[in-house]
């Protein structure tokens, strides 16, 4: 199966600063992939590269097996909802649908109409007077009525209140259940994405720190606590992501594919949020395979 997104050594430089560097990824098609990381990590840069709004300074990127934005046909395969779901404030809801129909060869008018009706939006209302939640839902409608094979959303729920956030994610998940589509969405909060994603990419300081299927990440990370231990004497199959020690006790967050058989450890499962925070807090300069830090 063709990857929804494949990058190799991808980098983007603004002046002397690298917003993204050495990014190598392969997100299989058919997933809802979450792109998480703190503000300024390079999430927007990666998404804008994926939809062809900006061009790479280094490396390569392919979307749905093709060069990004190379042809109108490739552009038609990708839907994009930019940060803060921009609309045309002076145009009405109906105008937006007309615009969508005129600009997109694969436009699904029935799908768009059905969603507008279900949302209870007034077709004559100007977008500038819609609530934040309604704006987000209208922007999502435009993006999915295009019937994309890959839907890219940049921080779609960040500015929404909890109810609107939930309604937005419900609509998005309903769409993915009904149609064969890959989704790539970003958030600076893991909690927003925990239930909707089955694939996770963690970006920090312009680098990919972690990526993989959520189930595999959850299965391979464990928290160990027990009597104080020298971590250099752990089995080589156990990679320590995070460690804290008191004079008597050691608490580790490790990544391993093997069962933990040492009876001295109390073993606990960890949440996706714990995993993300542990990887974010990691000091990468001591890693033998650390990505070189560029432009600092």
């Amino acid at each position, binding site marked *: 199966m063709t990857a929804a997104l494949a990058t190799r050594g991808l980098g983007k430089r603004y002046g002397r600063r690298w917003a993204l560097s050495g990014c190598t990824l392969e997100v299989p098609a058919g997933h809802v992939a979450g792109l998480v990381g703190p503000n300024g990590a390079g999430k927007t840069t990666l998404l804008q590269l994926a939809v062809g709004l900006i061009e790479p300074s280094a490396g390569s990127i392919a979307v749905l097996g093709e060069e990004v934005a190379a042809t109108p046909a490739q552009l038609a395969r990708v839907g994009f909802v930019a940060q803060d779901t921009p609309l045309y404030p002076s145009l009405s809801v109906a105008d937006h649908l007309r615009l969508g129909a005129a600009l997109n060869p694969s436009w699904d008018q029935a799908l768009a109409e059905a969603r507008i009706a279900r949302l209870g939006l007034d077709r004559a209302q100007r977008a500038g007077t819609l609530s934040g939640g309604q704006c987000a839902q209208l922007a999502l409608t435009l993006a999915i009525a295009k019937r994309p094979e890959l839907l890219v959303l940049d921080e779609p729920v960040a500015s929404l209140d909890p109810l609107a956030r939930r309604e937005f994610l419900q*609509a998005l998940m309903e769409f993915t259940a009904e149609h064969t589509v890959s989704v790539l969405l970003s958030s600076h909060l893991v909690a927003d994405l925990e239930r909707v994603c089955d694939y996770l990419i963690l970006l920090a300081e312009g680098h990919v720190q972690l990526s993989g299927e959520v189930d595999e990440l959850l299965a391979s990370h464990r928290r160990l606590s027990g009597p104080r231990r020298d971590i250099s004497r752990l089995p080589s199959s156990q990679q320590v992501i995070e460690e804290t020690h008191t004079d008597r006790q050691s608490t580790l967050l490790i990544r391993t594919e093997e069962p933990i058989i040492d009876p001295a450890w109390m073993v606990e499962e960890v949440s996706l949020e714990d995993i993300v925070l542990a990887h974010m807090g990691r000091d990468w300069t001591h890693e033998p395979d650390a990505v070189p830090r560029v432009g600092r």
Partner: protein
Amino acid sequence: MIEFHLDSRSGVSPYLQIVHQVRHALRLGLLREGDQLPTVKDVVARLAINPNTVLKAYRELEHTGLVAARPGVGTFVTGSSLADPALAAHGPLRRELRGWIVKARRAGLDEESIEALFRDAVRSARIEGVA
């Protein structure tokens, strides 16, 4: 038709919560042979979760024979019973455990210590099983 709900604080993964809720509904008779489970689309539209989470739960239920998928129609409860054959053994085991708890109390252990001891014994038995 039943409706699923998720407890985000339970620490149990969403897919397992769905499996448990179906099993629970079967035990209580809320679901009977021939009943349809909510469609994947309905579940994700309600809970805002990934469709694969629901599919995984339904696959596991199918694997244990409790439900069967009819392609293009939906997922239905089969006739297989959830009466646990091991359930009959619960009574005697419970009585033995009670006796043990009484002994532990007499030895001066409080509830927390009893629970810690029990958990630890379960854990070490599991580790012996693995090693």
